């Protein structure tokens, strides 16, 4: 008994002549591109800005409370919900059912939201009010020409 799947012996698959076509048959004249082997990919912005695609959402900022942090009216915020919010992170929080973007202050058991504009007061949760952080702002996109 011979098995056609025996790995130790080469087996003739078919004794009829076979017309083999070249699958890759590009014949180029001229000097081969020296960049061909590098396989470099063009920089992809989304790859850099969005590390957790399932957990990343885009939100549009409206207002001036974060100007000193570089967030202006109408900027696009990249918000990552996969990150654990830490002290000094800029976060999107839910205050009274509304989204607000502020800097998170979380030190010594005290939690509050700070604006990056001296004309806006801090938001300190009063008794019984919970402060829900919706996501961490990881980038801010400004379009000069839309």
């Amino acid at each position, binding site marked *: 008994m011979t098995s056609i799947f025996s790995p130790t012996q080469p087996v003739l698959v078919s004794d009829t002549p076979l017309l083999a076509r070249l699958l890759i048959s590009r014949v180029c004249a001229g000097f081969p591109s020296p960049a061909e082997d590098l396989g470099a990919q063009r920089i992809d912005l989304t790859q850099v800005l969005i590390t957790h695609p399932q*957990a990343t959402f885009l939100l549009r900022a409206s207002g001036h409370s974060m100007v000193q942090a570089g967030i202006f009216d109408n900027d696009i915020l990249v918000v990552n*919900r996969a990150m654990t919010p830490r002290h000094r992170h800029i976060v999107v929080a839910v205050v009274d059912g*509304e*989204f*607000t973007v502020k800097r998170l202050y979380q030190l010594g058991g005290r939690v509050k939201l700070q604006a990056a504009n001296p004309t806006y007061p801090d938001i300190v949760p009063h008794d019984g009010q919970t402060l829900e952080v919706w996501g961490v702002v990881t980038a801010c996109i400004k379009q000069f020409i839309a």
Partner: protein
Amino acid sequence: MYALIDGNNFYVSCERVFRPSLAGHPVVVLSNNDGCAIARSNEAKALGIAMGAPWFEIEHLAKSAGLVALSANFALYGDMSDRMMSLAAGLGPAQEIYSIDESFIDLAGVRGCLADRSFKVRARILDWIGIPCCVGMGATKTLAKLANHIAKTAERKPGSYPAGLAQVCNLAELTPAARNEVLAATAVSEVWGVGRRLTAQLKESGVHTALDLARLDPAMVRRRWSVVLERTVRELQGMPCIELDLAPARKQEIACTRSFGHPVTDLMDLSQAVTEFASRAAHTLRRQGSLTNQVLVFVRTSPFRQAPQYSRSISMPIRRPSADTGVIVAAALRGLRAIYRPGYQLTKAGVMLLELQPTTVQQAELDLGRSEVPERSERGRLMTAMDELNQRYGRGTVHMASGGLAGNPKAWAMKQERLTPGYTTCWADMPVVRA
């Protein structure tokens, strides 16, 4: 071992991610045309709103109980589903996406405590995406689905099942006595594949609970009912009969039917609607790589209105199998003209593509006389270009002229008075955050 992971009140949960103020309020999502409730928050369920309750019957609750109703926003739900499914896939090596909010996971070869793992995946979906889920596990898909029902019910109605089964329930981990107890506490109608009619028949034979059904003799069930129910019984007994369906089969028929926002009497308006339905169906047909041989078109009045009733359908054969929007729309419009009668308040129409076949199989034929359409390959390229343009610039950018001009008000357009924005799918609809 299998797991079924599914989002709780999925459509409502999606809406709440972007409108946190809806938390704690009774919320329902309405079907196309704002007809009836297709998703309910726990608060809405507590108000006694049934699945599929017509809006006009529950509308008074908006004033008396603060009920919020939203039009179905399928663009949003589709994107959130996609995000959820890709995290749910982390539970095990193979995944079957069963519906927009449910997926089966094959747990074969997964080591460690399955409940711990499920709680972790559940927490990740809740943190990353904002959708609460429940996970059910069992030796078969039917048991996993049942376990999921138990996990959900135990969470929503404390006391219905042991509290330890809330959110994540692994039937395989229970002692036989404990498992029998939860199966006995579950109505037979909750078993996967047991519908309303079967429930009634089973009850007549004294089968009331999932446990009763599991204790039947499979051979008897096969004789008395069907092979399908026999399979369900065996699955309940822990013998896998239904495998994970990893490659969804091609659809055997494709339908696009809609109720109109307002009754339509005019042939012109109907033609526009039928053109749009046929175009959508043709697009779906091309996406799955099929051709159609028959185009069915139907129109009908509403059985709920006190007006003369009319309902007709006609099936139009196509000379050569095709996936060409032009050919399909032309056939649908010919059919429509044949069945149209003036004077009826039509409320629904639809187009169905029947007798589908893969693009790869084609009947060769002699070229007798001039062919009625240009070269097939040329039309194929046109369709590809059209699909690409509509993909890039939005649906309806390029369409058949008989569909009416964009921007003209359409008498038949769907009622979506409470539609929320396409938060994650449309640049202009991005959620706004106060700075």
